């Protein structure tokens, strides 16, 4: 055994056993300091064999590493002790950060927009105060249709009214563009309904319009199906029933299988397994003619939905008026 290895063994034992940073510092000075036996011996280096000098240098480096390691360990233990003593109650609440919200109707509207954007549709928003032409005439709604009545519609004058559906946007859009058209049209609509749990004189609709070559009712069904599967889950099915709207021919109503009971029957679907969602149809060729689109070349479908209805169904709100009261206790749930 050499002097150096004995020195290393002794110093290592001492350093590993150091109980505090002060002890360690004393040991470092003792074994590695300017007056330590190792330093003194190295000073005599010139008189030493090359091999021994190399061994002493290795020992020095080794001891320096040991001190560094021991110091890190002692520091870690010390800081943990400090932290442990400070005892923060981590179950106390975080600092308050005010958090706003988008209205539930906006959240749903965006979701609908995003589904259709994903299908390659644009979002078109037209005016709410419109003339009778775009709300009724261009949509081939004849003079006797009940929706034209003063009892159903808010008129500003004989020819100007608050739109009763988003369909005037179809007219605006087709007047402004050439087909193909793939668009949805969300927005406020107005009907002379006395407010109650399911009626409001103002509510939100979203309407879809497709104008392209060779569009069929099957395309309508496929599109509606995809939309409802996105919105209500992949197991949904849809069905189309005959109906009447002035601006589509054939017209249909579409239902979706109840997502609450999985079509087994529950109060929401009136135990039928189906929920009525909205109206749709193949665009009436006369509507195309009214906006200068050639019905022999182009065909299309349209469908419309109530946004509040979707929100109420999906989130279980019992009353449509809740959306317009803006009570934070309601809005902040979503």
């Amino acid at each position, binding site marked *: 055994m050499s002097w150096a290895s004995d020195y290393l063994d002794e110093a290592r034992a001492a350093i590993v056993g150091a109980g505090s940073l002060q002890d360690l510092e004393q040991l470092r000075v003792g074994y590695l300091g300017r007056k330590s036996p190792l330093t003194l011996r190295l000073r005599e280096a010139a008189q030493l064999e090359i091999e021994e000098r190399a061994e002493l240098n290795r020992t020095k480096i080794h001891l320096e590493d040991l001190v560094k390691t021991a110091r890190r360990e002692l520091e870690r233990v010390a800081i943990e002790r400090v932290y442990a003593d400070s005892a923060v109650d981590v179950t106390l609440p975080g600092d308050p950060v005010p958090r706003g919200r988008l209205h539930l109707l906006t959240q749903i509207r965006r979701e609908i927009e995003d589904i259709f954007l994903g299908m390659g549709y644009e979002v078109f928003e037209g005016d709410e105060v419109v003339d009778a032409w775009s709300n009724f005439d261009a949509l081939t709604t004849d003079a006797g249709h009940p929706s034209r009545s003063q009892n159903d519609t808010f008129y500003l004058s004989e020819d100007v009214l608050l739109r009763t559906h988003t369909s005037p946007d179809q007219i605006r859009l087709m007047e402004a563009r050439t087909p193909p058209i793939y668009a949805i049209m969300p927005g406020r609509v107005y009907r002379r309904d006395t407010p109650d749990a399911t009626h409001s004189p103002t509510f939100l609709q979203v309407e879809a319009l497709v104008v*392209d070559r060779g569009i069929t009712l099957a395309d309508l069904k496929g599109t509606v199906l995809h939309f409802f599967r996105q919105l209500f889950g992949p197991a949904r099915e849809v069905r189309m029933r005959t109906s009447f709207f002035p601006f589509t021919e054939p017209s249909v109503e579409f239902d979706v299988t109840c997502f609450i009971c999985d079509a087994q029957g529950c109060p929401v679907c009136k135990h039928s397994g189906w929920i009525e969602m909205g109206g749709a149809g193949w665009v009436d060729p006369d509507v195309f003619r009214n906006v200068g689109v050639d019905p022999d070349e182009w*065909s299309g479908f349209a469908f419309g939905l109530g946004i509040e209805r979707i929100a109420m169904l999906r989130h279980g709100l019992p009353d449509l008026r809740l959306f317009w009261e803006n009570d934070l206790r309601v809005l902040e749930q979503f």
Partner: protein
Amino acid sequence: MKVPVSWLREYVSFDLPLEELGRRLVFTSCEVDRIVPRGVPDVDGNLDRFRVGRVLEAVKHPNADRLQLCRVDVGEGDARQVVCGGWNFGAGATVAVALPGARLANGLELEQRKVRGELSDGMILAEDEIDLGTDHTGIMLLDSQLEPGTPLGDVLPLSDDVLEIETGYNRPDLTSVYGIAREVSALLDVDLAPPPGRDPERAGDEPVDVRVEDLERCPRYIGRLFRSVAVGESPPWLKARLLGAGMRPISNVVDVTNYVMLAFGSPLHAFDHARLAEGRIVVRRARDGERIRTLDGTERSLTPEELVIADAERPVAVAGIMGGEETEVSAETETVLLEAANFEQLGVLRSGERLRVRSEAQTRWEKGVAPELAEQAAVYATQLLVELAGARWTGDADVKGAFPERPVVRLRPERAEQVVGIPIPADEQRRRLMRLGFEVSDDWNVLVPAWRASDVRREIDLVEEVARFRLEEVPPTMPERTAMFGRLTHEQRLRRAVSDVLAGCGFVEAYTYSLQPSDPDPSALVLPVPLSEQQRVLRTTMLFGLVRAAQHNVDVGNEDVALFELAHVYLPTDGALPLEPWRLGGIARGGFFRVKGVVEQVFSMLKEEPRFTAAAHPFMASPACASVQGGWVAQLDPRLLEGEWAAFELDLAELFAQVPERILYDDVITFPSVKEDLAFVVDEAVPAGELIAAARDAAGPELREMRVFDVYRGEQVGPGKKSVAFSVVFQSPERTLADDDAAVLRGRIVTTLRERLGAELRG
């Protein structure tokens, strides 16, 4: 419309279960709300417990003055003892009897029991107990020819099902039992019975004085005269049908008019001929000031807008709406004038709106009834009046104008597949159309039946007629795309971003009404006939809806209210239509600067520098108000909303106009900036914003940033003065600014602020 199924089966026969028929009609024809049983429940042999009985003996109940004790033969050999409350019969009467265990129309189960000490082993029935009428004043008396013990169901319509359907605006033909039968016939491809009714022999040739002055609103008026009419009760089958269809039986004459209306969808009316002045019918416009008391007991004043049926002197009915009380058929009536007319739909619709009334007849006229049906209705009603009221038909008038033309439409059978997406064989299309009453020529020219003439005018309408029977089978497919659009516009993306910023700042989005009770702009658009005073004016500002929403939250005890809304306002223009710019409005509890900070966030997101200036609020008094690009920020007058509140409103088009379509990289790395703090002492009246604006003028684009971090007032600066401290950043995109360069910029700022605003740099 309620359709008694026994009635439907009279016109079309079908084997499939009723539920399945209902399910399929939902796809092809109309909403079927539900199928409800009516009358006596037809379950567990219940009908066997109803029999014809003959009263052998009827005496007063020994212990009750109001009851009779009867012995009734119900064909069992031994007679049964029955206690009965009716007195309209005696021994020998033929009656309807329910035996113990029978369940009545109201669901009650009959038991053998003692009534005042005497056994009652059954019940003698009044019509209401088996849903054959509403009368409970006496028991039903049956034809004395009937054998005791005959099952009651063989002689009375004890039990039925009713289809409750909803019909669309475009299908007047579905407001009739025969019309529904026609749908069933087309749906199931089975025969439809010919329309019921055959004219009996006419028993006279009296003139009937019918004049029609307005053939446009009344294109047809058939008036038929009946003498020796015995007004009385309708037979049970007729009452049962009417009750099943939801109408109250009144008298045989009135019931016949209602029954035929339900059968064909073309309403009729019966007048007491003796009460018509000069026995005359004039269909004309009402004269100003004329009045009529209608059958609902309401006194109505009329205007020349109203079409009326008048006699020689006065209106006796409002055309298509309701008859008058004075000429109503009553028990004394002997001569009846039957009206089977046609009234044009719009006229009836408008009259109904003006008079605020609804009747069964009106709901049919409003949908447009074919004038051809008036004749069918007249014939069937004539047959029934002769059969059921013993009437003699003695006179006939038929006044006609022009009827709507029945369209002839060419159909290309291959068109259906192009619309529906599945092939529909040509022969199926032909058969379906013919079942629906269309006449289809060999080369596919299709003549539309009168009852669909207003609704089916074009090829696409015929396609719908065949397509609707196949909707259940349409598969889901997707359009083949040749063009894509799937992206929001720049403006739409910015609107989403603005909302997100507001939500991020702790504001909750509100939806308030476009229609408000009032508006500060006197030219704002006002609804001439509002639904309520609360929703009357189209708003030109977002503020008041938000104030109301905030107030509501305060009222229900919510704290920390901060709301925003992004929606339209409606600005009047010289033209007919308003402008509808998008506005962002916000309101929050707290001071001016809370809300201003949020507005600054919006500008920051939009990469715009807001320029606030002190300004009077555009439409209200405000303790602190600033204008900024596109709008305003203001502290609210506490009279508007109690406590400390502030609000803002910004026009988004104005804001978005300045937003760059794309953001270009700004080199802030290559040449370091120089930062320093500068404080100026200035008159209290000088706004900080003006100091900054002047500094920008002086230093140019190398003044990268200048923001206030402190305002000090006190002894050190003297009265009427304030010290405003700014942190200032100088930076050039082209060179490193040396200390000298910064000193030059600072010097320019100091000089300009001193000269323009009297500001002194603080040492």
